[in-house]
């Protein structure tokens, strides 16, 4: 009985991992936040918050990153497809200028790809 329980728990853990981190993560696209002057993207505890940011196509935009996490992982934010990157100061707001881009989704992340977000241009 214990053996069955442990095996089922293990299989459930695997199924949960696949679903939560891959399947549900891909489906979780409805919550994006539009950029305005007051929007701050917090860099803290392994995530960008908000992590889905919507900006207008064909317009230069300035994003404000507030890094509260002193860990080295959070030091840089990179937008590889847009060739934009910035070093984020601890407990500071860093302005990151995003050039005018075509409509589409552009991932951004730290240099280790642990902090991850998506810039939605539309």
């Amino acid at each position: 009985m214990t053996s069955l329980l442990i095996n089922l728990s293990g299989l459930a853990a695997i199924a949960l991992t696949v679903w939560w981190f891959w399947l549900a993560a891909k489906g979780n696209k409805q919550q994006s936040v539009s950029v305005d002057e007051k929007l701050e993207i917090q860099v803290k505890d392994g995530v960008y918050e908000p992590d889905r940011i919507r900006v207008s196509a064909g317009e230069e935009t300035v994003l404000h990153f507030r890094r509260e996490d002193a860990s080295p992982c959070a030091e840089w934010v990179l937008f590889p497809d847009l060739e934009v990157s910035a070093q984020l100061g601890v407990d500071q707001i860093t302005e990151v200028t995003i050039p005018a881009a075509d409509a589409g989704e552009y991932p951004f992340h730290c240099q280790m790809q642990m902090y991850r977000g998506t810039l939605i241009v539309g």
Partner: protein
Amino acid sequence: MSDKSPASPQTFRLKGVSCAGCVKKIESALGDVPGVDDARVNLGDKTLVVQGSAAAQDCIAAVESAGYGAEEVRASARELREQQREDEQNHYRQLLWRAGIALGLGIPLMAWGLLTGEMGVHNTFQQMAWGSVGLLTLAVLIFCGGHFFTGAWRAFRHHSATMDTLVALGTGTAWLFSMLVVLVPQLLPESARHVYFEASAMIIGLINLGQALEVRARGRTSAAVEKLLQLQDANARVVRDGDEVDIPIEQVQVGDTLRVRPGEKIPVDGSVVEGESLVDESMLTGEPLPVKKASGDALTAGTLNKNGSLLFKAEKVGADTRLSQIIQMVKNAQSSRVPIARLADTISAIFVPSVMIIAVVAALVWYNLGPDPKVAHMLVVLTSVLIIACPCALGLATPMSVMVGVGKGAENGVLVRNGKALQQATGLDTLVVDKTGTLTEGAPKLTDIESDSDTDTLLQQLASLESRSEHPLAEAIVSAAKEKNLSLSEVTGFEAITAHGVSGDVDGKKVLLGNRKLMQREGIDSGRWHKQAESLAEQGRTAMYAAVDGAVAGVIAVADPIRKDAQAAVQRLKKLGLRIEMLTGDNKATAEAVARQLGIDHVHADLLPEDKEKIVADLQKGGAKVGMAGDGINDAPALARADVGFAIGAGTDVAIESADVTLMRSSLHGVADAVELSRATLRNIKQNLFGAFIYNTLGIPIAAGVFYPITGMLLSPVIAGAAMAFSSVTVVSNANRLRFFNPSHNSSADNGGKK
């Protein structure tokens, strides 16, 4: 601040501000300060911006009287960097404390286990004792490792798994299992009643220690930018209302008049209004000789005023100065990715959930198929796989090397635009080089003067004559006379004879200077000078006959001289495996003469600017990986077409913006330095990637217990924790080895680097 322009706003960073009520209190307190025209608090970034002429100290006092704290914000790059370094130091100390506390508990526990072997729960006393240790461990997990758990939870809510996830799962599982043993030992078989509190504490301690060492090693990787920042002085001496006052450099505004005394650095970009001095620009341009500056000449921030006092007008300040642009470019390039990183990126993105699955599968295999004690083995394998598999090292492998490599380039006067250019420079097999200004000085000079009589007298006469001419070669002759301090005479009856030369009367003598056709036209026999002129022409020089009062007095030759180091640089590039081809708009004879002297086999002469791009494209079509070295502006199309464009010696804003690699000094050695540096950097990246891949690909199976049949032992989670902690340190340390890179030719002093 009395020395501050009334119009410029002052910014303060606020402390203790949390709500709209605080905003009102502070704004109202500032309203009572004399000289404050407007005060606005930004709650978002906790800053206060004050307009008006009020003193900074008065504003801070007002904020403090309202019950909050304030400090003036100085946003110079150097101060930001200093602040950042201070933050890093604080973080470093914090991590050391956390590591010390966690290891302070973990080490004695581990020693107890090793010495006594009593880590099990078999009676009530052991339950009580290990229960207390469990609570102590919980305190350590919260105080020293709380950030792993909060990070893991936040990431989990975002459907994301990070390094924190692995650490939290690993240490959390070990602690929960141990508490289960403490609370209900009867539920577990006798052999599995073992506690792993020491593993939880040790892992937290070791990972904090690893991060601390990583923070310290990372600090060294940005040393290059710090060196550039050190070129800037913190203060500037501004002339205000007739007085000279020292103010922080960030308060200097465009249009300000500044005084710079001997031995001081130029604080901002500008132009000289009054005074004369020699300015050492070597740290920016690499030119070893100080440049004389007088009224109207441009000054660049970061350069050193040698001997005179200069009054100059600020034209570019803050982020607009050339030095700031260079610093910004280096920082941008340091954070850019190299194409080789793509593989690591792809793996990093899916790595953590994959590891979680592998850990569970391995644990189930041990539980179902492994020997007794199965539960204990399952837990050890689960924890070890989770802990050892963190991909930190993989993620750091390329950025760290690029950061050091690009910084090292800047130290040697090689500004790399991005990581892609750095990688592409390693694979170049052909280098096309623009002749004028790259292989040669770019300005014609008098190379030879031969006469039966006194050459200085002849030069004085010819220079006097040529001072009336606008021909490019004339300038070379006039300059040569000025260098010898020869005073020029009045010229009468000056005539420029198209395609022949010039004539005129100098000090009562009829002087002619021109080609053989001019001599023939005037009926003058060139005699023995003809052979001499022919010989000079064969060497790629423009030879001219000089005649005084109807007889040839001698020949002079003007040429664009080959750079002193061009031949050595070409040989060095050849040794690096590059095929050199010369491009020039000059005639074939001159071009071939230059090529012969430099040992260049392939010459393209008589080219129009658009031809250069076509040649690069043709070479590429033939399968060559082409680098192009030119002066950055008129060669722009070819530079852009090439796989890597090297803008040589320009150092202008345009070149910095457009070239893949900008060399701050007009030396072809810079190209060789760039190629050597890029190869060293890529080699370092490959070492890092290999190390990180090996680490993860071997680490996971070892943690999963593949060696158990041979050794009869499983990898301790503590060892897994130590391995994980030090993998990143290893990668960062290997990247730091690049700091010891030196170009094979000591040309750093020639192309703008440190001496």
